[in-house]
């Protein structure tokens, strides 16, 4: 966990009071909606179909149990008893009243949480690997650098009025769980030949209307130069990024139109001109940030405790362990992913009661720490293996032990037309129907790793372009239709999915997905050939044939 200092606390409290005054003036009519809109957006407040939506940042996906209780409190007191975890390590509340927002913000500030820059044309919540600090083989905890970027970019005047929103993601593992290649700037921490720590810098990734996979503009930037290099990128973006057309304003368009070589050359020139500057980090600054992260005092524990051996004889436990429990860097401990995808429920939703109970379980079994992943699941990052059976029983009682992590029903979905004012079609009911179709856990395990992503419009909050199976809702003559892509992925081998054919109506989407999955089972070379690998080997044609032969 990172410990905020007095400066952070003062900033949050001042921000709450500033927003309280802005809301008061809006409600009295002193501020028009035109004047107020940007102010509310800078505090994560949108207006959706039914109500205001309030988006709260969970920097690099790390929460203390106290903070999770704080999120539960807001859900219970100011909303309708639940929250929705998003694909960018945020939580959204869907029914907030404007008049009560300042009080909700104040209660979050008490536990060191805020909503600054969760909307608007600025640098957004810096996201990272939800297994940061506990993943085996990690170069270093990427949250140290995420926190540096968070402090640097928060309320930075030059980055508060960018051409469009701007998103960072950082990973320090070979396997990318942070989806860095679909971010405006993706940073991969690694060591150079001299053993120094630095970053591969990727720029221009993003989904939405015009999706691109990020491109590497520099294979290694030393850690001390991270901020100056990032500033050089943002200066080039600020200088050349288009402001005349919202659809052309993201940095991915600039990188594409200039060409990555030219863009990289512009950044290098800007960076050289900056020279040694106040942005060059000395070791003391980095160490100061590093020192504010605390880590658990792990016990020396056996690799295979008796409790685990015994529980392995219980099939439901063993199924859950197989799918939800992952290797920790410390022997005797595990990382446990908590599925927020129970059969028939909205993906990523958690009730206030579940959040409170999970906070208690984190205190009991995970040194009081919880993580949030972009797959819309939570994780307990430090669970002793001996405690896994007891944890499983407790999670099961809460409806939080669905053994489907990374399987076909572990669906990523945006709120869609049930909530969102931008959506053209519903996402959640499609996800719910698919979880029912694939509810049999034996079938799900037979299929193996398969990620379905659903977006209710081209803005792609459900990351449909990088779903192994991607589903995009569109509107045709007043009816909901869905385009289906296959073969996308968001990891270190990130690719955009390929369209299989014409859009299908709402009522046929689940049938189409079943057809695709059945085709895969018939076409795969071996039981362990993953869906994406079969698509890579065969292309879309056999799947297209299967889906459209009878339609």
């Amino acid at each position, binding site marked *: 966990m990172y410990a905020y200092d007095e400066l952070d606390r003062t900033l949050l409290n001042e921000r709450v009071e500033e927003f309280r005054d802005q809301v008061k003036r809006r409600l009295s009519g002193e501020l028009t909606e035109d004047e107020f809109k940007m102010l509310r957006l800078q505090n994560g407040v949108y207006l959706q179909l*039914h109500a*205001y939506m309030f988006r709260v940042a969970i920097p690099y996906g790390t929460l203390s149990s106290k903070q999770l209780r704080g999120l539960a409190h807001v859900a219970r007191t100011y909303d309708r008893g639940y929250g929705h975890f998003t694909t960018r390590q945020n939580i959204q509340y869907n029914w907030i009243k404007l008049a009560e927002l300042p009080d909700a913000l104040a209660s979050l500030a008490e536990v060191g949480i805020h909503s600054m820059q969760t909307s608007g044309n600025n640098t957004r919540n810096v996201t990272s690997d939800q297994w940061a600090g506990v993943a085996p083989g990690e170069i270093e905890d990427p949250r140290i650098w995420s926190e540096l970027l968070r402090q640097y970019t928060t309320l930075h005047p030059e980055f508060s009025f960018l051409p469009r929103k701007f998103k960072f993601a950082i990973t320090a593992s070979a396997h990318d769980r942070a989806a860095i290649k679909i971010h405006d700037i993706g940073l991969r921490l690694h060591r150079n030949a001299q053993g120094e720590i630095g970053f591969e810098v990727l720029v221009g990734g993003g989904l939405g209307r015009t999706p691109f996979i990020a491109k590497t503009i520099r294979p290694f930037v030393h850690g001390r130069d991270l901020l100056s290099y990032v500033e050089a990128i943002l200066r080039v973006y600020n200088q050349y990024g288009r402001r005349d057309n919202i659809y052309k304003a993201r940095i991915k368009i600039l990188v594409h139109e200039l060409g990555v070589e030219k863009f990289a050359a512009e950044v290098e020139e800007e960076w050289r001109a900056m020279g040694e500057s106040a942005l060059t980090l000395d070791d003391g600054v980095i160490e100061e940030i590093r020192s504010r992260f605390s880590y658990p005092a792990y016990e020396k524990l056996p690799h295979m405790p008796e409790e685990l051996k015994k529980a392995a004889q219980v099939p439901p436990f063993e199924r859950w362990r197989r799918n939800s429990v992952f290797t920790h860097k410390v022997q005797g401990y595990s990382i446990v992913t908590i599925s927020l995808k129970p059969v*028939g429920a909205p993906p990523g939703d958690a009730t206030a009661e579940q959040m409170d109970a999970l906070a208690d379980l984190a205190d009991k079994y995970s040194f009081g720490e919880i993580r949030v992943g972009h797959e819309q699941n939570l994780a307990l990052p430090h669970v002793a293996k001996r405690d896994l059976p007891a944890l499983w029983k407790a999670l099961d009682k809460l*409806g939080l032990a669905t053994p489907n992590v990374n399987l076909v029903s572990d669906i990523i979905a945006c709120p869609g037309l049930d909530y969102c004012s931008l959506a053209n079609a519903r996402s959640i009911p499609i996800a719910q129907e698919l979880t029912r179709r694939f509810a049999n856990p034996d079938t799900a395990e037979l299929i193996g790793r398969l990620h379905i992503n659903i977006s209710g419009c081209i803005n792609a909050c459900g990351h449909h372009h990088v779903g192994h199976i991607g589903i995009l809702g569109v509107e045709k003559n007043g009816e909901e239709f869905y385009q289906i892509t296959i073969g996308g992925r968001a990891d270190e081998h990130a690719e955009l999915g390929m369209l299989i054919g014409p859009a299908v109506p709402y009522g046929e989407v689940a049938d189409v997905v079943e057809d695709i999955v059945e085709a895969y089972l018939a076409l795969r070379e071996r039981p362990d050939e993953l869906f994406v690998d079969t698509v890579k080997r065969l292309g879309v044609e056999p799947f297209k044939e299967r889906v459209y032969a009878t339609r």
Partner: protein
Amino acid sequence: MVTANRTADGAVIYRNAAQGWSTDLSDAAIVRNVDEARALLAEAVADDVGAVGPYIAPVSVKDGETVKPGNLREHIRQSGLTIDLLPVSA
């Protein structure tokens, strides 16, 4: 009709014939041509304190009196979520 969200709490509201707002679609002022729609919208936009983002939306009127939303978006705004809300099973 013209619809918006209420400023204080974001609730869905409809412009009525008495130059006010109602949360009930059946109270909405129904207009049948472009000029009437523009006039109703202009009146709604003028109430910047009470409502946010007014716009013209379609309705269907059955038997001359029963008013229904004219598309799925407006149906969801009027009737609420189409989904089972909370996690129910493990």
